[in-house]
């Protein structure tokens, strides 16, 4: 019997685009917030709505783009987003990850991710999975826009199940642990304070010009 950690499983939605940049995921006008929450309404703002979004405008007053896949009622509760290559390229804005999470996305699957975005995901409990292009293609081919389908994501065993078939995925142990154990990165690094201080002392001797 397969054991599933359900946290990262759910209905999936396919976004058939490469090079989805973080400016698309959350446009610049929403970066003025000094909080980490409330970005979900404006996820993919320029694609989801037909009018220009501002911080003041409520989403209920917006003109919805019915053609955009995330506006299809079947996929409103999706928690898995599948995309093509180089997802999350561009700006380092962590707001992009906050927006995906706020919308309800727990897992993003793509052929490849931009480095900064990929790192940002795991700092916020979002699982980013890299799969080969042909496997992604298979998921896209199976994707039915008239019916909600689920993907079961088993992070512990690094497997994704789709209709009784499964594929393995790779993830480094550190990132996996971050998600499974909700690791407090800063707390864990601060446990190495003495090592950091020792390094700093020696480093200062060698590079005195870097210290005031």
């Amino acid at each position, binding site marked *: 019997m397969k054991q599933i950690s359900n946290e990262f499983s759910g209905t999936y939605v396919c976004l058939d685009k490469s090079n989805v940049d973080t400016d*698309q995921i959350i446009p610049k006008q929403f970066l003025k917030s000094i909080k980490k929450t409330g970005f979900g309404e404006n996820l993919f703002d320029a694609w989801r709505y037909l009018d220009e979004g501002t911080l003041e405008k409520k989403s209920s007053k917006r003109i919805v783009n019915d053609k955009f896949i995330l506006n299809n009622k079947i996929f409103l509760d999706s928690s898995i987003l599948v995309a093509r290559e180089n997802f999350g390229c561009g700006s380092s804005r962590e707001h992009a990850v906050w927006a995906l999470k706020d919308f309800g996305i727990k897992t993003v699957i793509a052929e490849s991710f931009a480095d900064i975005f990929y790192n940002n995901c795991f700092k916020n409990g979002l699982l980013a999975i890299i799969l080969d292009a042909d496997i992604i293609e298979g998921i896209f081919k199976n994707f039915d826009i008239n019916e909600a389908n689920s993907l079961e994501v088993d992070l512990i065993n690094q497997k994704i199940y789709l209709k009784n078939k499964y594929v393995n995925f790779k993830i480094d142990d550190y990132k996996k642990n971050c998600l499974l154990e909700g690791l407090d990165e800063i707390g864990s690094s601060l446990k190495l304070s003495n090592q*950091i201080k020792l390094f700093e002392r020696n480093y200062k001797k060698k590079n005195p010009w870097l210290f005031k």
Partner: protein
Amino acid sequence: MSSKTLYDKLWEAHHVAKKDDGSSLIYIDRHLIHEVTSPQAFDGLRERSIKPWRIDSIIATPDHNVPTENRSDGVKGINDPISKLQVVTLEKNVREYDLEYFNLNDSRQGIVHVIGPEQGLTLPGMTVVCGDSHTSTHGAFGALAMGIGTSEVEHVLATQCLISNKQKNMRINVKGNLPERVSAKDVTMFIIGKIGTAGGTGYNIEYAGDTIESLSMEGRMTLCNMAIEAGARSGMVAPDETTFSYIENKPFCPSGEIFKKAKEYWKSLKSDDDALFDIEHDYSASEILPQVTWGTSPEMVTSINEKIPNPLEFKNAENYQDALIYMGLKSGMKLTDIFLDQVFIGSCTNSRIEDLRIAAEILKGNKISKRIKRALVVPGSGLVKKQAEEEGLDEIFIDAGFSWRDAGCSMCLGMNPDQLGQEDRCASTSNRNFEGRQGYKGRTHLVSPAMAAAAAIEGKFVDVREVK
């Protein structure tokens, strides 16, 4: 001892500890802070009741979300209350933790990636981070410089370290003489066109070859600035005499004996002759012509004498087709037939004094085309602005019909009042032509400052090599 690349050397020099899971703690020498990506990180520190580990490593300034005119009132002059709150929040955090800060009325204020080098806050051999992807700019000094997210900003504030995995090594060699008026911007755009926006993902890029060595420091900054647009979190150039003479006498650069001592160390910062790279690319400078992007990704770029390619020539044909629809262009069109509505000279890529000089040289005695609704010049810092005014460049820009602004990110990301109108087509010296980047439904073409100036005069793209 095995041979090492420059990146290997910088990595090892800053390696504090290897954690059980294989990741590393890397010591950070310089942390640049701005208003947009830092407030949540400072909140995190307060929640933990901890202070920044090393405040002398931090420098803060507002740049992304600030207006570029009517600045005499400082923060009070910011009309948008939400933007104002973000800058006020930065100032509050700076006061609370006693950080070095260049406020809106300080002539040293400007785009973080302009003021760091300008003040000598960026030095060879450093690790530099900032909550901004264009931090790769500082690699021009032979520094390991990376853009980071807000969680990482908080981590660096708290621990002085970044959790990182070692990248692979890529070297890009460019050799020979660049054609006249072809600049570092064209070189970096040309490279992105060749390797693609994901070509450098997972790599540190070292730029090398005599073409790179002959670039000024400002040119090298432009080059490294867009390493991230090739997917690489960091790009770098080995430091040399050009580097050392640029930084000597900068306000925060060490002086006297300590400078000499530092310089001896900095001279060792280069890849060993027999160092192995995971991948190398070689290009000839003579084949690099003025570049113009025609799509919505920096890799959608071609030379000024070419036509817009057919999307079917590319793997992601549909994306390329979507880009042309967004841009309101058709394949087969000559780039020199693209007419413009706006021109923007500025951004962390191209807002330094040499950028303004070349643009002014082309604009001198000319007027911008009647087609152009608005042309902006936004110096990268208050000091760049001052220098340009001392050289009379401001008058050249103003006489030509440009608006002469105060320092900030301005229309590069349109977070502030400087934005494109819907379907406005802009020749921009910035770094990203993403959909809506410079304004809702705005259309961005990335070019060099020389190309932007020439386009402003003609109201359309022209080959700047042919402009008198």
